[in-house]
Structure formats: structure tokens, C-alpha cells
């Protein structure tokens, strides 16, 4: 599959199809399984400075065309997560540590405490107080936090952006100013579901984030705009569940793609997407580089 290999966000990957953050990423075992199933690289569950149990259930609700979740960033803390990263590395692909914190110092603390092949800064989870999009919707925070982490690590740093803002491109520019090696778009869209029998919000946290096919058009638009403006590469995530979706994201300008909710259908999704992409490139006589951003170059 040489046709799919190449550089993505400062890493060299055998293919550009990755496991998204927070999906089957709590343990080294499940990350390694994703790697063995064919992922080009794997992103861990977001880890922070102290253990968190997450929100009370229900933590997920299946809705039309997608999934609502409010996991609440459960994680065992970075202090004991290294063994899981090391186990995940046995999968033979780079392991990206997704991390979160409440500001530049905590982000830097978590990043300095882990040995990973790359960091992805979660500045976009929409349902955890003091974290994620609560700070990541402000460009100056994005810039400061990116800079703080960059100063403390010598591997690539990706910044995962929230779509719950009027102008995602300004967040991307802030990440770029802070020294990001790539931006990742998008995290979930803030959303809610209500039980009609009782009038109660279904999620334990009342609201959460929407993922899955329903958000793909939003993600495509964000990736298109970001890649048209930024110099750093864009990694596309949101609703990818087939090779056509991955191709569409790359046409919009993504250098790599991440798959989350579609893992509900099993680990076979990586093999399906990479095989489909490869056939497509051969049939079109194109390289990945030529495919990338082609939608923006059409007359």
C-alpha cells in the first residue's frame, strides 16, 4: 500500500486513516488492536492531570444519523498512562497522545509527563467543565496552550479544534501561531436529546457532543476552509464511515483522516477504508497528494 503512505502532520504514516481520540483508546490493548486492524496511527483517549470517572449515564444516545455522547473525559491520568502508550506502540504505528488540561501549565505538565510519538491537544471536547471547548473557543487560549506544549516536547503537536464557534479558521490560525504542526477538525457538535416520556434530557450530563454521519458535511466545510487558509496541514474527522467519506475529506483538503463513531461497526473499518482508497487512487491514476484539496482547485 505504498500509494497510501506519506507524511501526515509531521509523522510518516503507512496510511492516512487513523483512530480518533476517545474511541476505544482507554487501554493499550484496544489501541494496539486498532493498529493491528490497519490504522495508520492511533490517538489515545484524552488524558489529563488527575483521574476522572466521567459523567453519570446515559453517556451515549443514538440519534438520527449519529451519536450523542457526554463521556465526561474519564481517564486514569497521565501518571499511569505510559504503560498503555508503550503497549499500543507494539501495534507498530505511531501513537498520538490526546491530552487535556485547564490551561497552558496543566497542558505542559501532562505533555512533559508522557513519552508519545505526537501530541493532540483536546481544546474541543464540548461537555467537560473547565476543559476542552470551554477554553478552546478562545483563540488566545489556543495559541498560548499550543506554545506552552511545543516548548516542552520535541515531537509533533496537533491541535484539535471545536466547530462550536462562529469562525473555526481563527482558531486554526491561533494554533498555527502557537507553533502547531497540524490542526485536527472537528470535535463533536454541542447537542442534546430529550426523553419525551418524562421531559428529561437523556444524557446524564444533559447535553453532549454529536458525532457520526450527521456531522460529516459540517466537518467537510471546516476542513475546506481551514486548509484554504492555513499553512499547516489539516487532519479531517467527523462522520467518516466509508472510503468515499475519507476521499471526500481528502478532496476538501485533509492530509489525513480520523475515524471515530464508525468503529461501532467493528475494527474492520480500517481495512475497508484503506482498501477502498487505494483502489480509487489507482482507478483515477492519482496520488494522495494530488487528491488532497482538489475540490478547492476545481474551476
Amino acid at each position, binding site marked *: 500500500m505504498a500509494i497510501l503512505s506519506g507524511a501526515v502532520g509531521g509523522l510518516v504514516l503507512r496510511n492516512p486513516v487513523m483512530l480518533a481520540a*476517545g*474511541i*476505544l*483508546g*482507554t*487501554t*493499550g*490493548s*484496544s*489501541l*494496539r*488492536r486498532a493498529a493491528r486492524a490497519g490504522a495508520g496511527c492511533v490517538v489515545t*483517549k484524552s488524558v489529563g492531570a488527575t*483521574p*476522572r*470517572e*466521567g459523567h*453519570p*449515564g*446515559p*453517556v*451515549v*444516545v*443514538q*440519534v438520527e444519523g449519529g*451519536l450523542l*455522547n457526554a*463521556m465526561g473525559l*474519564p*481517564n*486514569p*491520568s497521565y501518571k*499511569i498512562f505510559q504503560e498503555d502508550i508503550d*503497549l499500543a506502540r507494539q501495534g507498530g504505528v505511531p501513537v498520538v497522545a490526546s491530552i487535556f488540561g485547564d490551561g497552558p501549565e496543566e497542558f505542559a505538565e501532562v505533555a512533559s509527563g508522557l513519552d508519545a510519538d505526537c501530541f493532540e491537544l483536546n481544546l474541543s471536547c464540548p461537555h467537560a467543565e473547565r476543559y476542552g471547548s470551554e477554553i478552546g473557543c478562545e483563540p488566545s487560549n489556543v495559541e498560548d496552550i499550543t506554545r506552552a506544549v511545543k516548548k516542552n516536547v520535541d515531537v509533533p503537536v496537533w491541535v484539535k479544534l471545536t466547530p462550536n464557534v462562529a469562525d473555526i479558521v481563527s482558531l486554526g490560525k491561533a494554533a498555527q501561531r502557537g507553533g502547531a504542526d497540524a490542526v485536527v477538525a472537528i470535535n463533536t457538535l454541542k447537542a442534546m*436529546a430529550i*426523553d419525551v*416520556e*418524562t421531559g*428529561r434530557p*437523556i444524557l*446524564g450530563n444533559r447535553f453532549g457532543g454529536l458525532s457520526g454521519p450527521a456531522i460529516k458535511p459540517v466537518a467537510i466545510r471546516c476542513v475546506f476552509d481551514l486548509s484554504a487558509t492555513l499553512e499547516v496541514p489539516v487532519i479531517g474527522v467527523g462522520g467518516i464511515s466509508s472510503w468515499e467519506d475519507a476521499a471526500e475529506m481528502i478532496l476538501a483538503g485533509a492530509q489525513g483522516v480520523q475515524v*471515530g*463513531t464508525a*468503529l*461501532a461497526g*467493528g475494527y474492520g473499518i480500517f481495512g475497508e477504508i484503506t482498501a477502498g482508497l487505494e483502489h480509487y487512487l489507482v482507478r483515477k491514476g492519482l496520488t494522495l497528494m494530488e487528491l488532497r484539496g482538489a475540490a478547492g482547485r476545481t474551476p
Partner: protein
Amino acid sequence: MRPVNAVIREVAEENPTVRTFRFDPSFDPVPGQYLMVWVRGTDEVPMGFSYRDGITVQSLGEATEALFGLGPGDSVGLRGPLGNGFDLVGDRILLVGGGVGAAPLALLGERAREDGLEVTSLMGFRCRSDLIFRSRFEKMGDLVITTDDGSEGVCGRASVGLERLDPGSYDQIYLCGPEPMMIDVIRRCHGSESKIQASINRYIKCGMGVCGSCCLDPEGIRVCVEGPVIRADRLLESEFGRYKRGPSGLKEYCGR
């Protein structure tokens, strides 16, 4: 799916800490499958089917206590049936249960009898007053009861009761109970691991194979969708019997 609104039709007290809740609507589960039970305002927790329309619950903490506060006419939200369930194999089967783990096995045994299988049960409890579903198991076939304090049946753990039976003579053995008891039974049935199906307990949050909370080391088996029923030979290659992960992902080591 969204949680289905289910009205509690009746509540039966099986023992001082265990109650059965029967719902409307009823489901069509494979025995061993489970429901995510949303006790509104508290939490959503996994519970195996003990009837097509019911679950049998031990009161342990917040969610189960809140459920015990509900009665006929009250409602909960249900997602399911989820997971794989038991696979009925052969003509003669043995059910081995401990405590509230007897619940899914009662449904399995009844299904097996409908299919014409011969069913023997070995059920372990702490004491006589903890016994549940005695008459359901007696109706299916031979029943050996053990109690830790000897107040009923054989004195000792369920695994001690195995000595009264010939585990190797059954086509398939079905297990559900506390983890130390299950691992003990599996070890005592050395050589028959591929004939043992165990329903295991891991921290289930999403129940749909995305969040990673329930994964078993070292292969990353997703217990919520690839389980909760897992063959003993696979369990012996895993963390089972040594540790499990709590809600944050931190390991909790087995107490022995």
C-alpha cells in the same frame, strides 16, 4: 437506539438485597444478553435478563438503590438487548452460578429445556436466606446448592459443589457469578476450557463498542459487544481473575 420507556409491572423480593423487576414491554433476548437500565436522574447500568421482560438486581450502590426505590407503575429507560448472549451447545449442559449470577442462568436453563436439553445446575450462595430462583432451577433438572456457611446444601463455595458432579461429562458448562468464583471453577475444569462459556462483568458505559471502557487486556476484547459471554480459554489468556478497570480506566486488582 434511544432508551425505550419501560413501565415496571411488578417487583418481587427474591432475598433481602435482591429484587426482580418485570417490565412492559417485553423483549426477545438471547439468554446472557443485557439491558442498559436508565434509572432516571441517577445513572445507566448494565443488567442481564432474568426473564424476557425482567431483570434481577442486587442492591449495591447509587443506581441499584435508586432502582429499589421504584415500584409498579414507575418507569425506567431501557436500551437492549445488547451483547452476544450464551450459545446453547450439545444435549447435556451444566449451569454454574453464584449469587445474583444465577439470574441469567435461570433464563438460559429454561430456554435449554424448551429446546429439549438436559440441564443440571450448581448454584452457590452465601447462606440459606440468599437463595434465589430455587424452584426455577429445580424444575429444569438436578440442582446442587452450596452455601458458604452450610445453612443449606453443601457447605462451601460453588466450586466445592463441583466435586459432586462430573464436569467433564457435560457438553457445555455455563458460568455466571463473582469473578473469583468463576476463575476457580475454570481452573478446576482444567482441560475443558473450550467447553465453558462465562458471562463476565466489566465497566460498561456505552454498550456499543466505541468508548473503550469495557476492553479486556491484552487483546482488547470489547466485553459490551463481543461479550459479556466469553469462552474460558480466551479468558485464561486475559486479565480475567487478576484485575479489571474501574470507571476512570484505573486498574482494580482482584482481592485475592
